[in-house]
């Protein structure tokens, strides 16, 4: 069973990586700004073929590693995918075209409103606060071991039923929920609009809105999952299943909606085609050049503040363990 599930995951990821270059904006090829016709040229096709060969080789290697019952299969696949992407990016760079230096903004464009406003953004925190009160009143009804992590074999990490343990769990859910809500807000208010006029602007707006909505759904899910885990522990396994279905639904929806037009940043700001570092850009979020959704501007100090706020507690916890 484990082998079937993990093989299905690797194959699904490989299929996704196989088709991903075709779903990207026509002016971008492996995160490099190129002539839209470049992908149809001999050089463009050769780069794509090489990328796909490396991706599938990584997938086969990952499946073989699984067969040997070694746990490195995920890391192996991710490594292979990154090698394929970086290699394709490097090979595309000589065909890059210079970025447009003219920026235009339509001053009459109506202001965009965050979907649902602050009520939708902070409702999960209200829900978790209510859950904390409920858990305090029904402490004896809570399961002795509360599942907090699920793997392919089911729940694999638990916390003991103590006041500190429950508080820690709810705090973790609140933190994760706030993080997703913050990223949704950031995509809306802290990212650059590439197009402010015409159909390209409509596509960009729609994609941004859908992204923010998806992240808000994940933020709400954190609170709902906490309720199920504490109040209905027998059905807690439903959570991870819902997450898997949600991830697929999110991917399909975002692919269908299309990413907005490309950014105007120089190619040199996209390190290895994945990491965006542009000190001249005041935005914190920017649409990915390869992949679906948004990524951080690592030259923005707030990116590092958010990363530290998330990573430092995790590191402290790991060290203390």
């Amino acid at each position, binding site marked *: 069973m484990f082998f079937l599930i993990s093989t299905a995951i690797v194959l699904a990821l490989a299929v996704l990586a196989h088709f991903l270059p075709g779903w990207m904006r026509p002016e971008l090829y492996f995160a490099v700004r190129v002539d839209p016709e470049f992908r149809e040229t001999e050089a463009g096709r050769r780069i794509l073929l090489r990328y796909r060969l490396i991706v599938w080789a990584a997938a086969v290697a990952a499946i073989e590693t699984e067969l040997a019952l070694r746990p490195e299969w995920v890391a192996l696949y991710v490594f292979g995918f990154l090698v394929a992407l970086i290699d394709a990016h490097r090979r595309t760079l000589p065909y890059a075209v210079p970025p447009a230096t003219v*920026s*235009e903004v339509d001053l009459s464009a109506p202001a965009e409103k965050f979907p649902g406003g602050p009520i939708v953004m902070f409702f999960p925190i209200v829900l978790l606060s209510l859950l904390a009160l409920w858990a305090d009143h029904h402490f004896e009804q809570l399961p002795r071991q509360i599942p907090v992590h699920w793997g392919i074999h089911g729940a694999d990490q638990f916390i003991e039923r103590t006041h500190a343990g429950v508080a820690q769990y709810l705090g973790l859910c609140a933190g994760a929920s706030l993080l997703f809500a913050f990223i949704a807000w950031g995509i809306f*208010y802290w990212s650059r609009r590439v197009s*402010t006029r015409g159909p390209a602007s409509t596509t960009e707006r729609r994609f941004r809105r859908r992204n923010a909505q998806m992240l808000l759904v994940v933020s709400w899910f954190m609170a709902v999952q906490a309720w199920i885990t504490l109040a209905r522990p027998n059905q807690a396994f439903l959570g991870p299943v819902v997450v898997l279905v949600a991830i697929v639904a999110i991917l399909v929806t975002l692919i269908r909606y299309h990413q907005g037009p490309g950014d105007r940043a120089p190619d040199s700001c996209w390190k290895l085609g994945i990491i965006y570092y542009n000190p001249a850009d*005041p935005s914190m979020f920017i649409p990915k050049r390869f992949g679906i959704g948004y990524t951080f501007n690592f030259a923005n100090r707030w990116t590092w503040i958010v990363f530290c706020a998330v990573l430092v507690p995790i590191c402290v916890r790991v060290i203390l363990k």
Partner: protein
Amino acid sequence: MTLRIDLKSSVPVYRQMVDGLRVLLVNGELKPGDQLPPVRRLAMDLGVHFNTVAESYRTLANEGWLEIARRSGAKVIARKAPKRGQAEVAETFDHRLRGLAAEMMARGFSRESVVRELRRLAETLEAH
């Protein structure tokens, strides 16, 4: 109603922003009561520093075109007509216009196309 800036131009971005917004204000495309985008929003969309946008808003506010409020941002206000332009000021603008025309020709535009552009500009001004 578009604000356009060229990041590679020799004219500073701040100057381009002030000039571009002033054209929209003089032409009546931006009317009293119109709200300008917040400083952060415009800075991110243009890919320039927040201070550049804030400074250009302040310059236009000092000229009497905008009112800047901490919460509501920059709003276009009715501007009192300034006193009749003085002769030396007119001379300065004449000098700048000649300079611009010379720059266009230096960049390869024909004399005819420069004249055409200036005529088109004069017609636009007359229409308002």
